[in-house]
C-alpha cells in the first residue's frame, strides 16, 4: 500500500507554522519518526491521507537533565532517551531503562517520544513506563501552551485528548522524591512483538515502609494504559514484603478490562497481568535494596 492520495508534504522550520498548517487542515497528520504512520500505511489505512506535516526540523529533539528531572523534546528518539537514561544509571529510572530496552533497535533509532505518546496505542511499552513516572506533556495550540499529566492524554484505543490543531512539543519527567526505584516488565511471546501485557511500577520507601506506589499497566489490559489504584493502596504503607507484593498483583485484576485479539484472550491477559505485576514489583524492591 502507499500514500496514493498524498498531495502536500510540509517540512516547516517553526512550531507556529506547524500550528497554522494543523489548524487549516483537520485531516493533516504529523510525521515525526514515521514508524506508526508506516504501519498504518502498510495496512491501507492512510489511502485517503492528503497532507503530512514533518516536524523533524523544529529542533524539538533535545533532552535536558537536571536536579528537577528530565525534559525531552517531542522528536527526540527512543534511542536518544535511552542513552540519557543509561548515563544516569539511577534506581528511580529503572523502569524507564527496562522499557527502553524492549523495542527493536531499528524502532528505537527511528521512533520519537512524541510519536509514541500521540499514537495512543495501548500495546506500546514506553508510555506505560512514563505513566509510572508521573510524566507531564507539553502541548502547543493556537491558544498557547498547556501541560497535561500523561494518563489524561490517552483517551481511548488509538485516540488521544489533543484538540484539533494541537501538537505535543515535549515531556517532562519529574525527579522522583526520596528513596525511589522503578521497574518495568513486558510479556510478549517474542522479542519484537507488541506487548500482551506490560507493567511499570514505581516504589518509594521511607523508614522501611512504602510511602508512595504507582502501578501502571498496558499492553491491551484496557483501551489505554491504566493505573491500578487497588494495587497502589495495598502497597502504600506496607513493608513491601512478599505477601504485600502478591496481594498487589492479585488486586490489579479488578482495575483492568482486558482486550481479546489474535495474540491473546482477555482471560489470559488477566491471568498474566497478576503475575507480571508481582514479578515487576519484586524487581523494583530488589533495586531499592
Amino acid at each position, binding site marked *: *500500500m*502507499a*500514500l*496514493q*492520495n498524498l498531495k502536500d508534504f510540509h517540512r516547516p522550520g517553526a512550531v507556529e507554522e506547524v500550528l497554522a498548517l494543523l489548524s487549516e487542515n483537520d485531516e493533516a497528520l504529523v510525521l515525526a519518526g514515521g514508524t506508526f504512520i508506516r*504501519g498504518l500505511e*502498510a*495496512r491501507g489505512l492512510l*489511502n485517503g491521507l492528503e497532507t503530512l506535516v514533518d516536524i523533524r526540523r523544529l529542533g524539538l529533539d533535545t533532552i535536558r537533565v537536571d536536579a528537577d528531572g528530565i525534559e525531552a523534546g517531542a522528536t527526540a528518539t527512543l534511542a536518544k532517551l535511552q542513552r540519557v537514561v543509561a548515563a544516569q544509571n539511577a534506581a528511580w529510572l529503572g523502569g524507564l531503562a527496562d522499557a527502553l530496552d524492549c523495542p527493536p533497535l531499528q524502532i528505537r533509532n527511528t521512533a520519537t517520544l512524541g510519536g509514541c505518546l500521540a499514537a495512543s496505542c495501548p500495546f506500546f511499552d514506553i508510555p506505560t513506563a512514563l505513566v509510572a513516572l508521573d510524566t507531564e506533556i507539553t502541548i502547543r495550540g493556537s491558544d498557547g501552551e498547556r501541560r497535561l499529566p500523561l494518563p489524561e492524554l490517552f483517551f481511548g484505543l488509538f485516540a488521544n485528548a489533543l484538540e484539533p490543531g494541537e501538537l505535543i512539543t515535549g515531556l517532562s519527567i519529574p525527579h522522583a522524591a526520596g528513596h525511589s526505584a522503578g521497574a518495568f516488565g513486558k*510479556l510478549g*511471546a*517474542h*522479542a*519484537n*512483538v*507488541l506487548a*500482551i501485557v506490560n507493567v511499570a511500577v514505581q516504589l518509594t520507601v521511607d523508614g522501611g515502609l512504602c510511602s508512595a506506589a504507582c502501578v501502571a499497566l498496558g499492553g491491551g489490559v484496557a483501551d489505554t494504559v491504566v493505573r491500578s489504584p487497588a494495587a497502589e493502596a495495598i502497597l502504600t504503607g506496607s513493608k513491601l514484603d512478599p505477601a504485600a507484593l502478591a496481594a498487589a498483583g492479585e488486586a490489579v485484576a479488578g482495575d483492568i478490562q482486558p482486550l481479546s485479539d*489474535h*495474540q*491473546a*484472550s482477555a*482471560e*489470559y491477559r488477566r*491471568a*498474566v497481568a497478576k*503475575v*507480571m505485576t508481582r514479578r515487576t514489583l519484586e524487581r523494583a524492591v530488589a533495586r531499592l535494596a
Partner: protein
Amino acid sequence: MKNLHVVGQSVERPDAYDKVTGGKGYPINVRLPGMLHGKMLRSPYAHARIVAIDASRAEKLPGVKAVLLPRDVPQLKFCPVYFVPVQAPSMVQDFDVMNGDIVRYVGQPVAAVAATSVEIAEAALDLIDVEYEPLAAVFDPEAAMQEGAPQLHADAPRNIAKNPSFEFGDIEKGFAEADHVFEGVYQTQRAHTCYMEPRVCVVDMDRQDNITIHVTTQHIFGTREKLAFALGIPESKVKVVKAPYIGGGFGGKLELTAMEPVAALLSKKTGRPVRIEQTRQEDFITTTRNPIKVYLKTGVKKDGTFTARYAKSVLDCGAHATHGSEVIMVHGAFGVFFSYHAPHQKWEGYTVYTNNMIGGGYRGYGAPQGSFAVESQIDEICAKLGLDPIETRLKNSRKQGEPHPFNPAFTLGSYGLADCLKQGAEKIGWAAARSSPKDAGAKKRGIGLAIHPVWVSGCMGFPDIYEHSGAIIKINRDGTADLATAAMDIGSGQITTLCQIAAEELGLPAGAVRMSSQADTDNVPFDAPTHASRVTYSAGNAVKAAAAAAKKRLFEVAATLMEASPDDLEVSAGRVSVKGAPGRSVSVAEVAQRAESPFVQMTAEGPKPTTMEEKGTIIGLASLSPKSNPPPCAAQFVEVEVDTETGEVKVLRMVYAHDIGRTINPKAAEGQVEGGFQQGMGYALMENIQFDPETGSCLTSDFLDYKLPTAMEMPRQMDSIFIESDEPTGPFGAKSLGECCVITPAPAIANAIYDAIGVRFTTLPITPERILAGLGKL
C-alpha cells in the same frame, strides 16, 4: 572414500558479496525501460458470485494504461504446480487465473491494472466497482465434508478434492494383537515460509506472444510450462530468465499464481514491460503450509513393538487443490506411513476444499504435520508404558540394507539413524538430563526428542513428478570452468555446493568453477525444481557427470600434448599429470589454451602445426535422471524451559543429528540445519496465519502480527551433527538435507514441554496461552 580436496570444505559462497552489497541478482531489483506497475484487485468475500464489474472510472484515471478483467484472461483449468506436467492425472486441475463468475476466498484476484506508478495503480483499484452476491462460506474442512455444506466445486462432492489411502496387513487383527492401543488427534496450523524476497515478476510480452519473464521462481522450466498453458501459447514462446538467486523460497515459490499471467497480459495490452511486486500481505494469502488434522491410532505390545497403525488425515487445501493433491500423499507416505514398521497399517487421506486461502508447498511438504502426530504419540506411548524413547524408536524403525519403503527396487544402502540417535543423545547429555529432578520454582526445564526416519533425495520413483537434471561445463583458457544449469539457488547455497562438486570432479581448486549468471530456459537443459531436497543429490549427480565428460575431453587433449595415454592421466589442484609420474604435468590452463589455439602457431623455431584431434573448446554436458532416492534421516534433541506462571517457553539448547551421506560444505549444511530449526521452532511455538472466523479475512497480514523466531528467540546453544554414511549413488556419497531439518522441531519441542510440565499438547502452535490453559490456570 578417496581423498577429497574441495568437497567437505566450508568454501565461501561466491554470491555472498553480491548479496550483502545490494543483491543485484534478485528479481526484485530488475527494472526495464518503459516499465509499468501492475496491481491486482482482490475479493473481499470468502465466497460470492460476481454479478458485475465496472472499470470505467479506473480506466479514466490519468496514468492508468490498461485494465484487465476476467473476460481478457483465457478461462482454462489446470494444475499450477511446477514439478508436475500441467495436466498430470495425479493432480486436481481446478485452478484458474481469474475467474469471472465466482470467488472462493478472500483475496482472489478479480481484476488488475497497469499504471505508470504503484500509487496510481492502487488508486485505480479503488475505482473498479465490483458487485458481488455473497454465498454461504465454509472454513472448517470437517464441516465442509458434511452433507449440506456449501459446495465449492461442482465436481467434488462433499468438497473432497482427493481421497488417497494405503493399506497392508489386517488392521483389525493388528489392534487385536496389541497389549495397548493409543489414540490421539493432532492439529497443525497454517504457516507461511516467510521468504525474504516477495513474489515479484517483470514480464515483457509482445504482439506475437513472445514472452520474457524475470520472476521469483524455484523452477524456471515450471514457470515456462504453466505460464504458456495459462495463456494458451506454445512453451517455446516463453523465455524464463534464471535469476542468479532468489531471496528464499522454502517451497513457497513452486507454483504459478495469478501474478505472472496477469503481468504478461497487461504487458501485451500496453506494449510495455509490466512489473508486479506482491506486498507481504498478498504473499501471506497466496500460499501457505496446509493445516492437517491427524487422527492417529497405534497398537503396541508390552515391550513397545508396534502391531498396528491407523491414521486418518484431513487436509484443508483452501479454495483450490493445487499442492494439496500431492502434499496429502507425501504426508501420508513420508509423514505417517513410512516412519515406523508395523505389520498391519492403514491410512486414509482427505484433501478438502474450504473458503480459506489456497495452500501450497512449504519445506517438508506434509511431513511436519505427520511427524507432529507420530512423534508426539510415540512419546506418549513411552511415557505411559515406561519405555525408553530411544530404544522404542529404534526397535520399530528400519535398518540399513532393508528395502526402501516407497520403492522396493531401492534399498536403504546408507542409513545412519542409529548413529544419529546415539551421537545426538551423547551430545545433549540425554541420560543425565532425563533422570535429573525438576526445579521447584515456577520455571521448569525439560528435554525431548523426535526423529525423522525416512525422507527423500529428490522425487525419483514418484508418480507424475519431474526428476531429472542437466548441466553444461566449459573449461576456460585461464584454467577455470563455467557451470551452467537451470537449478535455482533459493538461498540454501546450491551455487556453492554444485561448484564444489564440479571442482572436485575436474581436479580444480575451490573457487575455480563459477556458476554462469546468464541462463534462461532457451539455453540450458531442463532441470526439475529446487524442491524435495533434490539439488545436491540430483543436480549434483548431473553436474558431476558433466564434469566427468569435460574431464574426459581434457585428458584427450592433454594426452596429445604430453604424448601419453588419456587413461594414464589424472588431474588435481589444476594440473594434469601422468599417474605415478607427478613430474610430467601440465596445467589445465595450458591444455585449454592448446585446445582453442590456432592450427599453426609461430614459434622461435618457425611455424609449428598442432593436431586436428586436440581442437575445440573443452566442454562437458549431461542431462540425466538420478539413480535412486536415498533417504536421509534425523534425530533431534531439545531442552526447553517453561514458565508455569506465564506459559512462556524458551528453547535453551538443540542438538540436531542428520545422516546426509556426505557433507559437501559443512558451514552451508549447518546453516540449513539452523535455519530449518528456526522455521520448525516457529511452527511449534508461535507461527499461525489467523483468519476472522466470520469473514475469512486474514488477521495476521504482516510481520507486526505474524511472528517467526529471530536471533533473540533462538537457543543460545545449537549443535549440528552430520553422519557421513557414504551413499553409493550420491555425488561423492552425498544424499540430501534441505527439508529433513524442518520436520522434527515441533514434536521434539512438544515432547520437551511434556517432560518439563507433564502436559501433552496436540494442537500447534503451543502458545503461552495454551500452556497456561493446559496447566489448568485459565
